[in-house]
């Protein structure tokens, strides 16, 4: 299939066209489905009519220049964006067919299912063990045995178990930057989310640590759906299944990763990925 979809110019009916835009449309379920999502910071219109379908057990990359709204977009998916007081949102975001922007939807519930890894490693100034156990504990899991199990499993899941298993009670700030970021990933895995949002998770890391995280993402997508914001296009090309290109708060193009990087349909996408952009 080679249907070229220009999302930016054809917002209406995008939903239906969207699926045609992808190859291998086997029976994958939708995790997120945004409908005419608009967001303002005060008077600044940061997201404009975003209509995106995100499928489970895939890696969806969000690329675009700084300030294009890509970070804002994924922070909308777990409603972290609401921590900024002047934010206004309109439209719908369906997560597993439920509208998370609905007043009755509790953000805490949402975030229990939609985990997040941040741009800068942000472990708590607590022990490695307490960092991982934080999520389960706040959700009422107190049993030491179960917590031990969760901690080990999560650390293994983030491929950091062997490095820290002998010093679980040491402060997480003693770890290197790359280890801290994997710890944060493990902390996120500890509540076994459905979706993992990653906001430029490697931008503060060295190349080797970056590679480790990328390998992990490949491994984790077997069990989780991953949405990753990156401004490193090679990274998006390497690890993602689908890529959305954001520009000035709009989705210019959203399609299979190999296609967006080989035959982009929009001139602006092409300019951006070939580095001919402002």
């Amino acid at each position, binding site marked *: 299939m080679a249907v070229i979809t220009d999302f930016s110019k054809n917002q209406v009916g995008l939903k239906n066209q969207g699926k045609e835009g992808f190859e291998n449309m086997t029976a994958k379920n939708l995790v997120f489905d945004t409908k005419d999502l608009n967001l303002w910071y005060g008077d600044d219109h940061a997201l404009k009519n975003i209509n995106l379908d995100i499928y489970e057990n895939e890696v969806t990359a969000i690329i675009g220049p700084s300030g294009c709204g890509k970070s804002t977009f994924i922070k909308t998916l*777990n409603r972290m964006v609401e921590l900024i007081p002047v934010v206004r949102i309109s439209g719908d975001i369906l997560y597993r067919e439920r509208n998370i922007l609905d007043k009755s939807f509790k953000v805490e519930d949402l*975030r229990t*299912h939609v985990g997040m890894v941040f741009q800068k490693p942000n472990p708590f*100034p*607590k022990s490695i063990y307490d960092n991982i156990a934080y999520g389960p504990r*706040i959700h009422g899991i107190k049993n030491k045995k179960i917590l031990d199990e969760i901690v080990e499993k999560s650390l293994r899941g983030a491929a950091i178990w062997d490095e820290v298993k002998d010093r679980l009670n040491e402060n997480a700030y003693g770890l290197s930057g790359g280890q801290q970021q994997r710890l944060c990933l493990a902390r*996120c895995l500890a*509540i076994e989310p459905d979706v993992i949002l990653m906001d430029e998770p490697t931008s503060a890391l060295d190349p080797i640590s970056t590679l480790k995280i990328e390998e992990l993402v490949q491994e984790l997508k077997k069990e989780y759906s991953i949405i990753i914001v990156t401004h490193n296009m090679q990274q998006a090309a390497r690890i993602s299944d689908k890529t959305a290109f954001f520009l000035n708060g709009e989705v210019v193009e959203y399609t299979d990763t190999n296609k967006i990087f080989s035959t982009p349909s929009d001139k602006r996408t092409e300019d951006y990925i070939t580095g001919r952009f402002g």
Partner: protein
Amino acid sequence: MKYIDSAQVEKKMGSRLLKNMFAKNIFLLATLIGLVVLVVLIYRVFADSIGWIDFNFLTNKLSTDPEKAGIMGAITGTLWLMLVVAPVTLFLGVGTAIYLEEYAKKGKLQSFIQTNISNLAGVPSIVFGLLGLTVFVRGISLGAIVLAGGLTMSLLVLPVVVVAAQEAIRAVPQYLREASYGMGATKWQTIKNVVLPAALPGILTGVILALSRAIGETAPLTVIGIPALLIPLPDGIFDKFTVMPLQIYYWTIDAALVAEYANLAAATIVILLLVLFLMNSIAIFIRNKFQQRF
């Protein structure tokens, strides 16, 4: 033609530099005045107290006989007073700080409370004494007991704790809060489990500094009516009491009658200064040892 006569400038430069040197030394001298006074003051107090501080002085009860007089009562009173002030200020101060930093919306109410706190910090301590006298001692008829004094002192040092706790809470980086919210934690869970532990060293430092202010404060307690000669030791927060600064006060003004009282006052000052020095050392230790640099 040049407007600047460099020979003239050169000539003046010498005197300008001389003036600068002279001023620098004057400024240094002024700075040292404070230091000199500090040294003289401490020397004087220690010199007056020599021979008066011993085990009996610390463990004896109050007496009109200077040879027998001790400050056990004042020490016990100070301890009981702190047992009221510490929890009350911690609770009120940290609660207010959390409200202002985490819950209050930027707006009229928040800035009203904030302004009010900085105004309270500027109210003379003796006015707090009158408040304590009118409300706690007479209003709810507590009398001049530890609880009444402690509540009065708590209100007096409350701004210190609030401001310190606010600074400590503000210093906790936003990304730690985000990490917690990102796990599905609620606001209170985030405050309780992430913000407060991270801010604790700063808060404790503030509380200790507030306590050391309360320990040295005299004026509000003179107003609420602490007797000059109180012999029984207080056994709890509902007993009458005296504290070290008051003991210093009464001995100092009575030194005109019995000369040795001045020595007793000096000896009590030494003990008081040692206590304050110890508390400040603890505060500095906590700040350096546990303060997380974000």
